[in-house]
């Protein structure tokens, strides 16, 4: 058991995760009971009690969603705090790459937040409809969510427990361990093509949202996740750090960049989440939610504007674009 667990912030974080998990365990038991006994047509008092239990599950999940929503930035902050203790790590990026749990943990947390948001959306429309049409769907979705959360809890513990604070660690510049000569960008794109795609995808998403073409929208979202992430990492990020070779998604979350990372990644991930929720709402439930669509477009626009502003301001100030220096592997 590494002494890290005694660190106050980590202890608080793990305690919070554990409590949320425990409450979700209760909701899990209730959901299993409901799924077993649910029969909308029956008149028995058991059936009426089930409806009440469904509200308990709803309350617990709203609580879980809001707490997980707070715990994600707290997780990043905690890693930032212990980056002073972990040798060599300059920012939370370094810490997260410490063992294989780090990245997996981060993505599963995002996934859980997405699933919870989808569940709450389905629940909202399930209650509005008169016959609880998607009641079973909610139940099964929750079972999946609970499974993910249990995995997350285990990984939380394993991740912090596995950090050996004496092993020297390299920080985010070598974090991505790129093979020399390999093009870091996806699909073999180069910088200019990456940027063109970045803006084209944005336009396509906006158009397909209002054109109600959900198939195109889903392709757009998937591609935009990849292209967006890499454009920020390898192009816009360098303008935020004003250092051509600093490709790190986490460092912009720190104080010295005025926490711009939270706004930037928040709007990017927020837009993606809402996009996925709208698609599910339309394809699975067949409901068209105007509010979500507009919010999604707004979030993406905000994301695009922030990125482009940084480049524009840099260009205005220095009259030239940042040219990344070719790093020679000098041995």
């Amino acid at each position, binding site marked *: 058991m590494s002494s890290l667990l005694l660190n106050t912030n980590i202890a608080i974080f793990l305690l919070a995760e554990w409590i949320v998990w425990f409450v979700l365990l209760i909701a899990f038991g209730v959901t299993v009971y409901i799924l077993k006994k649910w029969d909308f047509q029956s008149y028995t008092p058991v059936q009426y009690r089930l409806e009440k239990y469904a509200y308990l599950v709803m309350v617990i999940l709203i609580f879980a969603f809001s707490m997980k929503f707070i715990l994600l930035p707290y997780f990043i902050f905690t890693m930032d705090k212990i980056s002073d203790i972990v040798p060599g790590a300059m920012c939370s990026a370094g810490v997260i790459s410490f063992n294989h749990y780090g990245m997996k943990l981060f993505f599963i947390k995002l996934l859980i937040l997405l699933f919870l948001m989808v569940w709450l959306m389905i629940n909202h429309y399930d209650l509005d409809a008169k016959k609880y049409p998607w009641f079973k769907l909610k139940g099964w979705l929750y079972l999946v969510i609970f499974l993910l959360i249990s995995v997350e809890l285990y990984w939380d513990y394993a991740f912090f427990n596995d950090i050996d604070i004496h092993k020297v660690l390299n920080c985010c510049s070598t974090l991505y361990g790129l*093979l*020399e000569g*390999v*093009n870091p960008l996806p699909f073999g794109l180069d910088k200019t*093509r990456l940027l063109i*795609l970045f803006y*084209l995808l944005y336009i*396509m998403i906006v158009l397909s949202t209002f054109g109600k*073409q959900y198939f195109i929208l889903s*392709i757009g979202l998937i591609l935009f996740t990849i292209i967006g992430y890499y454009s920020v990492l390898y192009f816009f990020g360098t303008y935020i750090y004003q250092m051509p070779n600093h490709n790190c998604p986490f460092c912009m979350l720190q104080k010295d960049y005025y926490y711009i990372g939270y706004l930037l990644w928040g709007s990017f991930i927020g837009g993606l989440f809402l996009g996925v929720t709208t698609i599910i709402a339309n394809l699975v439930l067949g409901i068209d939610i105007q509010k979500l669509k507009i919010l999604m477009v707004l979030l993406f626009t905000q994301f695009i504007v922030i990125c482009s502003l940084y480049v524009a301001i840099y260009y205005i100030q220095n009259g030239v674009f940042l040219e990344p220096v070719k790093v020679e592997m000098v041995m």
Partner: protein
Amino acid sequence: MKVIKIFSQLLLVLILSIIGYSIVQEDNPIEVVKGNLSYKPIPFILEKTDDTICKMLIHSYYGSSQAITKNGDTYFFNDIGCMMIWLEEQPYKESIRLWVYTKDTERWLNARLAHYTTRDKTVVGYGFGASERELKDSISFKEMRVRMLKEEHLLNPKVRKRLLKNRY
């Protein structure tokens, strides 16, 4: 409304074509060659193959080595030390064929049979050079592997001082 629909479809086609074009035209260096069931060393293309451990392009055969797993995946290393680190992380170590490029006879030799000198100037700097014939103070494969894992190689300043006598 109709215009929006058409325009977004057009955009989709344009985006997919750009991506398609770049994927086809991309030529990243190789990291692993699969399906080499003959378990024979592959004369890999220099400047176009990467060492999986130290993530560098291999510039010359001198000092390089190869490892072929049971299912034919062949990995390349520009320094024998890297291969040992890689080997440590693999399951079923015995079933993996290891080849080194000998410096004296300049041909691929089974690593477990080769002799290793400890003061060579190698790419990463671990200092293990493979040779076919037994030289003055060369060591066996087993001894080399243990030394590598005990970090008794030239990158360790204390060892370098003892072996090379100069400071750093």
